[in-house]
């Protein structure tokens, strides 16, 4: 129940319903998404979008953790031969 896709905020505007709407780029396409649930999201940020709403801002530092773990695994395995 969780199709949430990361995309980059390209531009932000207020629409005619006073909602905070952004153009978000996903790979090679852009689509609108509402930012009302992530008020601190700004142009250039990545957000996770679900049914037309951004539900979180992607934390780039935390995103790195998975790859840090992989590097650690390499080191451990190199040590243990």
């Amino acid at each position, binding site marked *: 129940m969780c*199709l949430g896709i990361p995309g980059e905020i390209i531009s932000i505007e207020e629409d005619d319903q006073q909602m905070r709407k952004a153009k978000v*780029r996903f*790979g*090679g*396409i852009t*689509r609108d998404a509402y930012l009302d649930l992530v008020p601190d999201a700004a142009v250039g940020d990545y957000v996770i979008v679900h049914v037309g709403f951004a539900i979180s801002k992607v934390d780039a530092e935390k995103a790195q953790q998975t790859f840090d773990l992989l590097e650690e695994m390499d080191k451990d395995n190199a040590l243990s031969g």
Partner: protein
Amino acid sequence: MNLFPDCPLPLSEYPRVLLAHGGGGRLTQSLIEKMLLPSFDNPFLAPLHDGALLSFGEQRLAFSTDSYVVQPPFFPGGDIGRLAVFGTANDLAMCGARPLFLSCALILEEGLPMEELWRIIVSMKEAAQEAGVQIVTGDSKVVERGKGDGVFINTSGIGAVLPGVEVGPQRVRPGDEIVLSGPLGVHGIAIMALREGLSLDANVKSDSAPVFPMVRALVEEGIELHMLRDPTRGGLSAALNETARKSGVGMLIEEERLPIGPEVQGVCEILGLDPLYVANEGNFIAVVKEGQGERAVEVLRRHPLGKEAVPIGRAVPEHPGTVVMRTRIRGERIVDVMSGEQLPRIC
């Protein structure tokens, strides 16, 4: 336990035709195999290939038909007319035949702007020139407003099978290599990006185009073609599954090899669509004799439409009739036929 005893009406599970029956997946197959095939029963229809192969003395001909109901009728990269010409020409090419003559039957809805009709006709003329075919006979009918969705086009075509070429599921052998001539999903996504309810800024243009020149190039370079299939309705999955099923071989394809452009990937991700099921135009799969895959790709890449040609897998003796894909993380999963229409999902 027999939950569904025999019923004279073959599709009693669905008392009415559903959109899914036109999706190119299982329900479409079901319609064809339970109702059409047994009714029209004859050896030319039975193979259920893209076209029928007919012989007149020495000359082998391919004969094919297709109807075009695409909405909206005008889309980036083309229109219904262009699609109608290239689509049928390509069905003939998939029989290993040079497309020669097309018929064109129009069903027009009362109220269709004349300007649009003219654009479509001009487009068909240009497409016919590009494909090297002549539209030699036709028909037009008008139905009342509200009964026709603008314009429906049927084109039927005749082509001359190239000498020495025999393609069909019966020729596919384990070990054969599967080559894909171009990127996946472009046409289907171009259409989807326009449809009501989707506000995408995708600059994706339909890649509808005649593929015969690529087929001819393969033949001229001596590639032994066993099977040709264009992955239109139902996508790559339908094309591979039908081939696997009818030929009785299994197929193994590599996810990492599949050419999927960033726009197609983007749209598929956000709508929850699988690019394997998205309709294509302007590309095809060729099942070639073992050992010839690399050469086939080389030949295709010399052609402007084949620049992204790639070998995607091979026919295998295991799991006959089933298509398996090795995922990018080296697991394996079955690529099944879509049951109906692929629906965008939120989950």
